[in-house]
């Protein structure tokens, strides 16, 4: 095909990015259908989510960031002035590194070792009464923390640092993937609803109302109870139920954009609905999407942690909620097991909140950051 032909085709679907996206999405769907109906296990379920989110992120986040380097630099200057946002960003990067590199240096987080159970973190020591078989008496034994297990061990002798690092990976995966699904779905529904208006808008907004009527966490508990917990499924369910807030915000933003001159001009020049939505409306709500996404990650991470905490998490992975659950059950002896995962959850949520607030201020031209 000639260069001109590609360009014309790209124009039809709203830009070259969508032209690349469509065959890739088709390929992804084909593999998924093959996986379900013909052969089994081409990728595992989380793999599909990663590929899908990866493609979308590459085309719609990395590419625009690269082509718009000067704009990015401008916004970075503005974000940089907010010290809390920078600190939050640094913590998130640290967490990503921890989740990627940490498992190489720590023991298996699921390996129980009853010889070394109930060891406190470095710098702490506890006294517990231990039954001595030789004398038949209880004696008081003092255990101090050692550098072998910097954060101590739980009541089954599992290394807490290794568990925390494994939990960081779980929380980040859930946070990024589920938010990716929720925000993509919310944006699509919001833009379509506002742009098409009328009956479509009415139906989509009633659907949003229905979804919003279920208390979010109770709906999650309900679905996981019926279908059973696995990490990929939890990510999918959070993604498929958590889009309502995004849809409403994007809808109201699009409603105000829809009547602006550049949209009318595009219409007058004969642009198709698809092109207007993909090439004109969505790029103009991108900064809002980024802020919503950053600020929804904490809720998603907390939802997964809460699910694991009440025992509805994926039993095959060590997540922060699950560690907290184990810690709560032996609170009188191994208090540190309950403290550490909560501190990490708290810091992670705080970091994303700081970054989200910083981004919102940076994107707002009226604010004088």
């Amino acid at each position: 095909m000639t260069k001109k032909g590609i360009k014309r085709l790209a124009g039809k679907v709203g830009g070259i990015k969508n032209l690349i996206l469509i065959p890739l999405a088709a390929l992804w769907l084909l593999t998924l259908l093959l996986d379900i109906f013909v052969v089994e296990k081409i990728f595992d379920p989380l793999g599909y989510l990663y590929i899908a989110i990866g493609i979308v992120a590459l085309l719609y986040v990395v590419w625009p960031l690269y082509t718009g380097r000067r704009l990015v630099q401008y916004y970075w200057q503005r974000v940089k002035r907010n010290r809390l946002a920078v600190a939050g960003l640094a913590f998130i990067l640290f967490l990503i590194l921890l989740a990627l590199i940490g498992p190489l240096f720590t023991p298996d987080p699921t390996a129980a070792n009853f010889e070394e159970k109930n060891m406190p973190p470095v710098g702490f020591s506890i006294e517990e009464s231990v039954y001595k078989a030789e004398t038949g008496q209880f004696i008081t034994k003092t255990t101090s923390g050692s550098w072998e297990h910097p954060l101590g061990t739980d009541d089954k002798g599992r290394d807490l640092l290794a568990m925390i690092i494994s939990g960081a990976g779980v929380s980040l995966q859930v946070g990024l993937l589920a938010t990716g699904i929720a925000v993509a779905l919310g944006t699509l529904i919001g833009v379509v609803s506002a742009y098409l208006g009328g009956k479509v808008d009415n139906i989509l907004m009633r659907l949003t109302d229905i979804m919003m009527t279920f208390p979010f966490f109770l709906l999650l508990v309900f679905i996981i109870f019926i279908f059973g917990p696995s990490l990929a499924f939890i990510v999918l369910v959070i993604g498929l139920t958590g889009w309502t807030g995004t849809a409403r915000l994007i809808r109201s933003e699009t409603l105000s954009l829809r009547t602006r001159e550049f949209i009318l001009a595009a219409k007058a020049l004969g642009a198709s609905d698809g092109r207007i939505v993909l090439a004109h409306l969505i790029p103009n709500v991108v900064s809002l999407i980024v802020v919503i996404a950053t600020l929804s990650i904490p809720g998603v991470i907390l939802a997964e942690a809460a699910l694991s905490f009440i025992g509805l998490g994926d039993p095959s992975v060590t997540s922060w909620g699950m560690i907290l659950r184990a810690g709560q059950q032996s609170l009188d002896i191994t208090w540190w097991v309950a403290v550490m995962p909560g501190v990490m959850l708290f810091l992670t949520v705080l970091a994303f909140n700081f970054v989200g607030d910083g981004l919102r201020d940076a994107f707002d031209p009226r604010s004088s950051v």
Partner: protein
Amino acid sequence: MRKTWLRDYILKRLFYAVIIAWGVLTITFLLVRLGPSSPADKYLTNLATRGEDPTQAIAAIEARYGLDAPLYEQYLDYMGNLLQGDWGWSFSTSMPVIELIKVHWIYSFQLILLSTILAALIGILIGIYSAVRQYSKTDYIATFFSFIGISIPNFWLGVMLILLFSVQLGLFKTYYDTSIPLLSLANLKQLILPVVTLGTGMMAGYTRYTRSAMLDNLRKDFVRTARAKGLPERTVIGKHVFRNAVLPLVTIIMFDLGSIVFGGAYLTEIIFGIPGLGRISFNAIFADDYAVVVAITLISAFLVLFINLATDVAYAYLDPRIRYD
């Protein structure tokens, strides 16, 4: 003119509420039916683990749930039963679900009511003060703590409160005692930790909302006018700024009930062993008691629906500026 408009508005909202209620029921029904195991399976495995003969129960269950009927008939049955107040049978507690809920709702209600009232009162007061003294030391401290408050996971806060006040200091019992009468000081005392657990995040949120709503209104022209004509600052803040800021705040508080507070109360009840609806649903999950989990999910959704409807109607009545698109 305004009267008929209000009537039309209420009718329209009622119509939407009916559609939403239908959607909630349908989604719940479909989720249960799409699930990998039917309620009957779970019931039978439960019987089998208790050493009873499952085959005897099959006919009874099929008649009870009508599971042999076609899907649309089951759907109509399900709707009909719910509308007639038949919410199913809880086999793990051997009583009708509706009776179970009648016994336990009060525990959730007292927790949510106390937390909401306290969080709203304290949050709004701090928010007003923070906005009036913008950029003062108090404002910075309040902003800092409200940031911490909204970021702290409430289930972790609950566990930490138990660790500190119950395990280490021994000030409170670690578990909620149902033998204490509801309207007594002892009951209030044992609700302190749960209310702090549930209320902290809410309070932090309300502080932030109030502060920004107050600041928005403080910059308005009518405030400048009020000050220019020499009204005392108290009147300006109390009558002109706060009255304009408080209505959206009420909507937010009501909306939070459904989106945040119910989930938070669910977790708080589990941590402190308060036998409210959250704890009942939690127990039912691990006993595979379908009817209870379905009923509590539905009830919470209907409560949200009702609260939203009531808020919208009250809002339209109170605020003449509102127009529904």
